């Protein structure tokens, strides 16, 4: 860690002068996320990506489940919905279908999206629903104190796995691709530019898009597993992540000490749920 500087000449400004203040609910800042948590970095990337796409702010809605990541909905100054645990995707499904002008983003955590919400995740991917899903994976239930989750690596300790977690974790890109998603990428919080670019790429696309962000949780996951600070985890990603676009998702398992495969795993087009509704069904009805 750098030693503190001796002088203090840097411009100190009010919070609402930050360039992202227009897309944040500044009356709710500072946010609840811990020092060294990567969630905010991912959110910064999202805001920048959104600005770069030029999609009007009024036409973007964000839906979250609950938990640390679930708070994203409450911090973004967009139409935003903070639903129940795991149910972000089905809520977003109704929202997106009822209002096709909206770009609907589901922004939630690993426990929310692939444990309690796992069924919704795979079925929404199967239908190729027009949703962009950002899954922040910090390997744990952070807000409630570090319980084991569906992505907790084998042998990692958690408050509900004091002897180590010994059930196999989900490999989210593999799960998403197998279920039918049409855009799948994974980045760590350290890959800010690439993450932002992925989000910019995925935001205007149709279909079920999944972006996984591997994210440090210094308070719950790192502490229980003696992995150091958030910064230490960022350094770990620096040393251990490999970028491999188009990688076989089966190679993207994450364990405690191995490599983290990042990149865009898949980027294809196939008809979405709405395409089928508007084309096939409409054609049948029109033919009568």
């Amino acid at each position: 860690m750098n030693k503190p500087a001796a002088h203090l000449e840097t411009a100190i400004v009010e919070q609402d002068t930050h360039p992202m203040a227009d897309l944040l609910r500044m009356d709710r800042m500072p946010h609840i996320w811990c020092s060294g948590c990567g969630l905010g970095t991912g959110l910064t990337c999202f805001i920048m990506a959104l600005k770069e796409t030029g999609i009007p702010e009024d036409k973007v809605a964000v839906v979250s489940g609950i938990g640390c990541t679930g708070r994203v909905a409450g911090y973004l100054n967009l139409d935003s919905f903070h639903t129940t645990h795991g149910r972000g995707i089905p809520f977003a499904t109704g929202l997106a279908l009822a209002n096709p002008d909206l770009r609907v983003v589901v922004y939630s955590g690993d426990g929310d999206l692939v444990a309690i919400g796992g069924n919704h995740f795979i079925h929404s991917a199967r239908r190729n629903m027009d949703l962009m899903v950002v899954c922040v994976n910090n390997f744990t239930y952070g807000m409630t104190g570090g319980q084991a989750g569906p992505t907790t690596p084998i042998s990692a300790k958690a408050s509900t796995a004091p002897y180590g977690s010994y059930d196999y974790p989900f490999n989210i890109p593999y799960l998403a691709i197998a279920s039918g998603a049409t855009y799948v990428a994974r980045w760590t919080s350290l890959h800010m530019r690439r993450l932002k670019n992925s989000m910019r790429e995925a935001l205007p696309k149709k279909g079920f898009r999944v972006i996984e962000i591997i994210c440090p949780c210094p308070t719950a996951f790192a502490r229980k597993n003696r992995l150091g600070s958030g910064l230490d985890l960022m350094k770990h990603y620096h040393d251990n992540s490999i970028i491999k676009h188009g990688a076989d998702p089966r190679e993207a398992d994450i364990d405690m000490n191995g490599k983290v495969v990042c990149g865009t795993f898949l980027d294809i087009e196939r008809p979405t749920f709405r395409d089928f509704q508007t084309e096939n069904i409409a054609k049948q009805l029109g033919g009568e």
Partner: protein
Amino acid sequence: MGEERRVLTGEHFLTGDHACAEGGMAAGCMFFGGYPITPSTEIAERMSLRLPEVGGIFIQMEDEMASMNSILGAAWGGWKSMTCTSGPGFSLMMENLGLGIVLETPTVLVNIQRGGPSTGLPTLSGQADMMQAKWGSHGDYEIIALAPNSPQEIFDHTIKAFNLAEQYRTPVLVMSDESVGHMTEKVIIPPREELKLVPRNYTKKKPGEYLPFECGEDEIPEMVKAGDGYKIHITGLTHDKRGYPDISAEAQDWMVRHLMNKIQKNKKKIIEVERINMDDAEVVVVSYGISSRVAHRGMDLARKTGVKVGMLRLITVWPFPDYMIKELAERVKAFVTVELNFGQIALEVERYVAGKAKCYLVPHAGGDVHKPEDIAEAIKEAAK
């Protein structure tokens, strides 16, 4: 195809389930998210056929939790929405019925009740979800629940449920039963222009002025939809008028009182009952749904033996018409509650009779309806 297919004006011979779907259509429903479960499946089937005709969307979700959430999402997307379920599916919807109540989302949930607990009697009738309707989602809340007793009524009451949902910005339940859902009778669908529909109460306020949970004396907040520039935030957490989470006892007190008051304060406007033979009644049968039709025969049989018996048929079960029971308890001898369970609404009756008259229950586990003779016997016993 288009809106001209929305209201199938005319005389039909329909099952309760199909009549329910037609009620949804006539009410302006554009979105149905559901999961098939007997005996409500025919509603979903009919909606899957009918909604695309008017440009609406039917989606078969992966389970009932998803179904309930999808209709909430669709409501905030600006569409009228509904789902239907039965038995275990109703249990699964409880979590997000609570979300619907807390987000004050207008939507309609139809429960075609079957025998329980658990998988129970998928194809046979029951009325044992009545307390679950009121208390099934965790936390304190008030709910509106209607109990139609014929295909015509399930058509009418599905429209009414949509209207109440918009009027009070809340999910509304239609608590029917297998017997009514699977019964076929004449259903008259009126001309479109004769339907009385309540449109969504969209705010006239501008972005920046509007708060999603701010309300006046009537306790009913105005609505917006996503995409209109209001940049709303709404949350299932306890929240303030802005919709921002406020996890404090004070915020909880405000929010829960508001949710209860908005129904309780307006209950005299909401509640609907049918009074039969009540002018000279000394014994009052309280019943709803299919049981009310069976009890009607029980009442006729008892009347033939000279008992002065009438019926208070609950069309609205929740909010419970407590003031009517209180008033009747002052002047009648006894109440006989007839329902396909072991005493759910009977408990409410007893609560408001408060010892001022005798209270009887004719219990039934479900799977069939009561024998009218048993009801007649209970009425005669009550008249003694």
